[in-house]
């Protein structure tokens, strides 16, 4: 009974931090989604022009690497901006692990949403390439999951420092 209540409370905390991470930084998040989606769109576009598959050719791999780079830089920036709020939450008793996990979900949400919009746009401009797109979908999702890692690491590490250590680095 007690653990069930504890779990419900924990799930609520995660839900709260995640929805607020998405809701409270509207402009920043929109910019992030636009950046991720345009990088995905151009990668798909170029891959199709060069007639190579994203997930099974050298050119494809370098395009994927590029997408991952753009996304991880973007998501890292988002994570950096969210730090101040997360530190306040820490003072109020939210434990660092819960906060980092929730922020990771925020980053994944942004990455996957961006990638989906990029794919949808690509499909709109060339409706016949559904099969080509489906071939690459898995690799794109993997890239976005990977791209959320640096931001997550930043948050987890920062929340595991004391406030003064952080202000010294600021």
């Amino acid at each position, binding site marked *: 009974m007690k653990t069930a*209540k*504890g779990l*419900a*409370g*924990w799930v*609520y*905390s995660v839900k*709260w931090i995640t929805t*607020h991470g998405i809701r*409270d930084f509207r402009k920043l998040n929109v910019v992030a989604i636009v950046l991720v989606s345009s990088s995905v769109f151009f990668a798909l576009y170029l891959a199709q022009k060069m007639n190579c598959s994203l997930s099974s050719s050298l050119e494809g791999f370098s395009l994927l690497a590029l997408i991952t780079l753009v996304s991880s830089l973007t998501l890292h920036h988002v994570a950096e901006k969210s730090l101040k*709020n997360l*530190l*306040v*939450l*820490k*003072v*109020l*008793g*939210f*434990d*660092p*692990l819960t906060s980092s996990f929730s922020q990771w979900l925020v980053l994944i949400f942004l990455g996957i949403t961006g990638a989906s919009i990029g794919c949808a746009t690509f499909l709109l401009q060339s409706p016949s390439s559904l099969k080509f797109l489906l071939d690459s979908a898995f690799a794109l999702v993997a890239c976005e999951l990977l791209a959320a890692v640096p931001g997550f690491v930043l948050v987890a590490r920062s*929340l*595991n*420092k*004391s*406030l*003064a*250590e952080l202000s*010294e680095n600021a």
Partner: protein
Amino acid sequence: MPEKPIIRLIDVEKVYRTEDEVILIFNGLSLDIYPNDFLVITGSTGSGKTTLMNIIAGLDRPSSGMVLVNGVDITKLSEDKLSRLRAKLMGISLQSQSLLPNLTVYENVELPLIARGVPPRKRAEMVEQVLDVIGLLGKGYRRIERLSFGERQCVSIARALVTDPPILVLDEPTQHLDPMTTEFIISLLRGLHMRKGKTLIVTTRTRKLADVATKVLQLRKRSFRYPASEDRAASPRLSE
């Protein structure tokens, strides 16, 4: 029968290191805080009040020495354990207030309850009660951005009180308040101490709060600064 201290600082030293300076804030600071204490820490700007509060709340670590809370040395705890300890024992109001500006008064005050997994209906009850006590009930729906500094200060105090913690750590709670509200907050804190038996640790730069305290700690601005190039063991010299 003498009670056991709820918080003990033993030989605490705090040194800040910047690129070209080493700043010694305290050395050999020892302090016992008992459950029925109303401790007021005074001192001029820069005397180390905020630093001391952060160390007591486990938000900052001393350079050396021990900080025992309920007998546990918190300087050795992980950040996760610290946040659990804070959640259980302390209500904190930082000098920088650290409210989330996009949220309403109500949502800000609700946060510590969410962190503690309090169910929704109970949360609403507790938030409303504390807003009522502090006189902000009519402003619960307002966003923090739309409040005066004084009102924000009150929200920050309400947020520290909402979980009904045994220890209250308040850094300059009356800093932005007008004289009337200051009086009100002082009498509120006094009531919490006298009637509800809370341990209060409060900093201030004014006399008023010190007058109602059971214990006053006066910090002096006596920090030594010396170039980082010099060895720490070298005799420090005063900056002024």
